[in-house]
């Protein structure tokens, strides 16, 4: 299982929002590149970059910073936020991004996801399903799509999606536990690989996710507050088989 620290970008800075509330922002670092270097040094095998401005507006405000990070990264990156069409996704892959995450576009224009799979290959494409009370939210979590997360998962698997990132919004930045039930439900009902985000607050949470067969765990708040030591988490997961 990949332990994937997240870097959330807003206005070129590394920030955290509380449960996706754009009014409740904390700036963690002015220099996202130095955060990336810290994560690399801690032994992370992948980093998740979220363009929060992009997620909200659908335009990739932090594209320059993301491209700079993609060039500088010595580990593979996945990028989400504002990727609404195959052209944007292809440009990111060209910049050296290993995986692009479609969120809003997967709900509103699923054919873009299908084209991305055809053009870039299924390993490059992740669909991010962000659920609030089991219902999919889009546009930087500001809009409810009115579709049940599990139905969305099935639709995406039918489209040929092989990897889904499931984020539980209610748990995001809350330091509780991840949504183990949702992880199991997806794993038991589909063949796709799954990344889990939201609420992971301890190494025990990570070990449990690994035991369930989760492909990757995305960490935000827990590492920024120091609740989880990234290097310790990476070695604990690698040692645990």
């Amino acid at each position, binding site marked *: 299982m990949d332990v994937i620290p997240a870097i959330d970008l807003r206005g070129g800075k590394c920030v955290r929002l509380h449960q996706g509330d754009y009014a409740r922002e904390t700036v963690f670092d002015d220099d996202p590149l130095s955060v990336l270097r810290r994560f690399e040094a801690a032994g992370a095998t992948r980093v998740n970059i979220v363009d929060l401005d992009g997620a909200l507006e659908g335009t990739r405000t932090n594209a320059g910073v993301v491209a700079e990070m993609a*060039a500088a*990264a010595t580990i593979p990156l996945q990028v989400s936020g504002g990727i609404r069409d195959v052209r944007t996704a292809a440009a990111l892959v060209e910049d050296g991004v290993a995986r692009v995450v479609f969120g809003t576009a997967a709900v509103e224009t699923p054919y873009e996801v299908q084209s991305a799979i055809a053009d870039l290959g299924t390993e490059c494409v992740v669909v991010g399903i962000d659920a609030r009370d089991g219902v999919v939210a889009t546009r930087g979590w500001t809009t409810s799509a009115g579709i049940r997360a599990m139905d969305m998962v099935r639709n995406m698997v039918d489209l040929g999606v092989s990897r889904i990132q499931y984020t539980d919004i209610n748990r995001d930045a809350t330091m509780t536990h991840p949504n183990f039930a949702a992880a199991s439900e997806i794993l038991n009902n589909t063949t796709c690989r799954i990344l889990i985000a939201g609420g992971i607050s301890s190494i025990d949470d990570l070990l449990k996710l690994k035991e369930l067969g989760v492909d990757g765990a995305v960490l935000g708040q827990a590492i920024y507050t120091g609740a989880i030591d990234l290097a310790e988490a990476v070695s604990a997961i690698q040692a645990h088989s």
Partner: protein
Amino acid sequence: MVINHRLANIHSVSKALELCGADVEVTDSAEALLNADGALLPGVGAADAAMRALGELNLIEPIREFALSGRPLMSVCLGMQLLFPDSDEGKLPGLGIIDGRVARFDVDQPVDDGPRLKVPHMGWNSVNFTAEDANRHPVFRGIPDGSYFYFVHSFHCLPSNPADSAATTEYGGPVCAAVVKGELIATQFHPEKSADRGLQIYTNFVRHVADIAASPVV
């Protein structure tokens, strides 16, 4: 010297080399290449597009000449595949510096974690070297067998001479992960995306280029 055929992850490679202490210049000039102490041929994308670009930039002969000059030339990913005479991927001939061919992964072959081999082979995979540490090319010394490196490729190299294969990984069977022939060093994986072990290879390369440049001409 990083060879710029405009179709590769030039930025990632140059940044990584700088991080490893290299004085990097990105060029598409044959003259600059032939004056360099060492060179790196990056690669992402399709074989024909890359060979066409190298042809238009009049770099095919200079790269061959550089490779024969005994100065270190490192090739990465598609860069490694371009060293072979031809590839299943395209119609244009490759650089033809190493004997063998480049084949597509057999997608019908079953693998451990699924019914079929997923192509591209993308992600971290463990690499074993064919030689003991002391007998390896200096660029690969000190890298433990079983180290993980980051791969993205749909085609793989089949060197005719088994001695040219420096390392293998497993993907539906053994797959050539690195090639060494004299001072020609190539990796199928991306050292620039393979964390510390990858940077160790580039650091070794940068040091080796300096060593060769400093040694008296025989």
